């Protein structure tokens, strides 16, 4: 009974809190640019509006066009449920759940690309191709980060991996994971979430033909993915397991807010990279995680 209540509570948390983060990012960007900007809750309004709207399907699209976003959303939500929430711990943490998390995100990627390719549009094909290709490097960086945590704690369960303090490599890990966060969530400098219909985009271009409830599901899934990466980043770097309950909760929330503000600042201060530079930056992220891994390897017994 408790487990079911917990699942519902956590699911509600993911559902309700996630759309807040893009709002904060936009607010930060507006603040840096000296504008008022959209309200923080703008994404909630957008989602509510889209949920009521009708759907225009491409004449070429199969039912997979709608199924894809749904499965991707489920995959991201399940990955979110697997992630322990700092002091609240994991829902059912077990050995090897870190890998399930990574591969659930991959499932989401497959389904999004599938849905993008449904329309036969060259734009969306381009976006899908970029998404799946850059993910190769991002996934290498992510697995190196997970491996460094695993070596440091001797465990492959997220609850154990994320609780102790990171080793001397924490700074490297933070930088690497932050870069992966930017890439996986299609933020500047990898992608520009503001542009629509440009040849220089990854994620936004994949959802060009989506509308109505499927688009709402895609946007909400993207917000959850952003929150997932922010949480993962904070928990991997901060020693939450050694703090008391309220401090840890405060540190977690503060950390997520800080990384969200960080994304906003990066987006305000940096320009988008040229596409041929993207692999270079991702390789840098991979190398950062790799050095964190080497430090963990050389660093003796760990926590």
């Amino acid at each position: 009974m408790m487990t079911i209540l917990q699942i519902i509570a956590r699911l509600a948390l993911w559902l309700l809190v996630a759309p807040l983060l893009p709002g904060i990012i936009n607010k930060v960007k507006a603040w840096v640019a000296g504008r008022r900007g959209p309200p923080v809750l703008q994404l909630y309004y957008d989602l509510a509006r889209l949920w009521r709207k009708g759907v225009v399907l491409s004449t070429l699209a199969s039912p997979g066009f709608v199924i894809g976003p749904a499965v991707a959303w489920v995959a991201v939500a399940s990955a979110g449920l697997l992630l322990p929430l700092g002091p609240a711990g994991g829902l059912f943490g077990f050995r090897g759940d870190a890998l399930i998390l990574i591969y659930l995100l991959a499932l989401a990627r497959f389904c999004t690309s599938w849905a993008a390719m449904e329309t036969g549009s060259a734009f969306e094909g381009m976006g899908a191709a970029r998404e799946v290709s850059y993910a190769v490097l991002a996934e290498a960086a992510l697995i190196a980060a997970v491996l460094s945590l695993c070596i440091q704690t001797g465990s492959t369960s997220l609850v154990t991996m994320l609780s102790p303090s990171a080793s001397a490599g924490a700074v490297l890990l933070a930088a690497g994971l932050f870069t992966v966060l930017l890439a996986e969530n299609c933020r500047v400098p990898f992608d520009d979430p503001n542009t629509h219909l440009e040849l220089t985009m990854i994620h936004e271009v994949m959802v060009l033909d989506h509308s109505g409830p499927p688009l709402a599901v895609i946007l909400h899934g993207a917000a959850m993915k952003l929150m997932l990466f922010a949480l993962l980043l904070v928990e991997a770097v901060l020693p939450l397991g050694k703090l008391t309950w309220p401090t840890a909760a405060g540190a977690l929330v503060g950390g997520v807010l800080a990384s969200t503000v960080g994304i906003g600042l990066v987006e305000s201060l940096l320009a988008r990279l040229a596409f041929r530079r993207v692999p270079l930056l991702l390789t840098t992220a991979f190398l950062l995680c790799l050095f964190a891994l080497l430090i963990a390897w050389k660093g003796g017994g760990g926590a």
Partner: protein
Amino acid sequence: MTPGLLLLLAALSLASGIVTGPRLARTWLALVLAGAAGALISAWAVLESGAPWEWRSGFHLGGEPLHLRLDGLSALFLVLLSVIGGVSAVYARQYWSDERYPDSAPAGRAWWCGLMLSMGGVVLCSNGLHFLIAWELFTLCAFFLITLDRRRREVRAAGWLYLAASHAGTICLFAFFGMLAARTGGWDLGPMRDRAELQPLCWLMLTGFGVKAGMFPLHIWLPSAHANAPSHVSTIMSGVAIKMGIYGLVRFSGWLPMPETAGWVILVLGAIGALFGIAFALAQSDLKRLLAYCSVENIGIILIGLGTALLGTARDHAPWGRLALAGALLHVWNHGAFKSLLFLGAGSVLHATGTREMSRLGGLWRAMPWTASLFGLGAVAVSGLPPLNGFVSEWLVYLGLFDAASSRAASVGAVMPAIVMLAMTGALALACFAKASTIVFLGACRTQAAAQAHECGTLMRGSMLALAGACLVIGLGPVLFWPPISRAVEAWSPAWASTVPPVPLAKLGLVQVTVALAACAVASWLWRKSRANGLRRGLTWDCGYAGPTVRMQYTGGSFASIAAGWFAWLLQPQRVLRRPRGLLPTDATCIERVPETILERVLTPLSQIVMRASAATRRLQHGRLSAYILYVLAGLIAMSLCVVLRP
């Protein structure tokens, strides 16, 4: 009934399939299915009880008594053989029917029984001589099946390449078994781990079985043979036949004393093969060639598991070795299931459209909804994504590698690159199959042939459904499959016997089931919600361009170009480009081809050198008697000089 009796019945029905097959197609199918069922039941009984079955004949065959052994390991491969063999026989009944292929279908049925029979012999024989005989028969039957459609030139070329490569491997195996028999004093096979003097033989074994398994630099025959064979033959080749190589590797690495270096070599070759194999697959434009290269990748994953297991045995049977081996063995089944499903799907596409070129297909989901959705399911499984079976075995291999890395034994730290390479392989496999399934089945039809496609028949669909069911069952209930896998692990190394899974497979299954159910629920909810809000069909958004054509779609080549570009040094793509010229360009073409680099850039130049050297040597033989007498004289003088000058 005892396993022996069932196996005898299976062998008899397959043997009578050879005789009756050419004439009576229905009887043939019944006989093959009966044989497969018999073998399956007996193998499952062994996996269930864990008691190996052994039988020695009183009579001699070729001077040696027949010795059959069905233990956990051979039962695992026998299950694979009987399931894939049976299912693709059902498919073949409709796919390669007498009406369509009156010349080759009858012979194909006889060879099919022969192939199943000889592969069964390979996994059962426990006598080196008989093993070799079965191995050779299996190679030959597979050759005749690959070249069923031998009026086509590329089919003959692929067949010859397969035959030549296989025999290069078989030579190593002849040497291996011969030397083994010479050193142990008999052809009988069995565990001989304590005889350290046999260690050097493992390299012969590795090469010989590696060729058949498609281990990375030895995989040269695999792409063309799998692509050009009839699809049901490609299925059994990649689902089962290359696994015979894996069977040999696993079997004899369990029986022989293996140096630790061999573990490292297998691990490194596996990791490289997985990454490079999928890079090659990504760059292909031929659907079946893509699937064939993907087999190289999956063999790589299996070898990573096996190599890690060998490292584990060298370190006092560390528990992570068992995990990796279990993952590798489960991947043998999983790859058999999803790759066969994909090859059958590709066969249906070929059957319906007459082409394997992905750039000529597209939009097939409309005409072939079953094939499209089953191929999509197979694509998810082969990319190793939850909630299907591919993920389960990759997860086990990953856990073995992670545990090895976190055991912090200094020398094992080198498995870390393998983990990163495995992750990149997974992401590339996703890219590769996102490309294959969407370019072929989604979007608009690129050619007339694709527009006139039709769904495949009931038997073909049924066999694909059966394999998709296998992918689902292993994916959703992985814990049910631990006992049989652990029997096989136990047969490999008794020190690792355990019936309780060392990892939370039940929880993994729970997550997989939850994800699957939630995905179905949310998908149907979203579909109904969209319907309720009002569905409207409209043209795909194309910047307001008024006359879109199907040629404006993204192509497979462009889809893969980013990631394939990173591997251009390996793939060496050949491009013929005619740029548009002038004010009003009329035509422009770009043809890109990815050669089999190892074969065309390494082996062919090497063999040309050998041929040139042989041609030069042949000049010595010209038929002039006086010169021959001179040779003899020169030889005599040289020999006497040797004798005189000897100190």
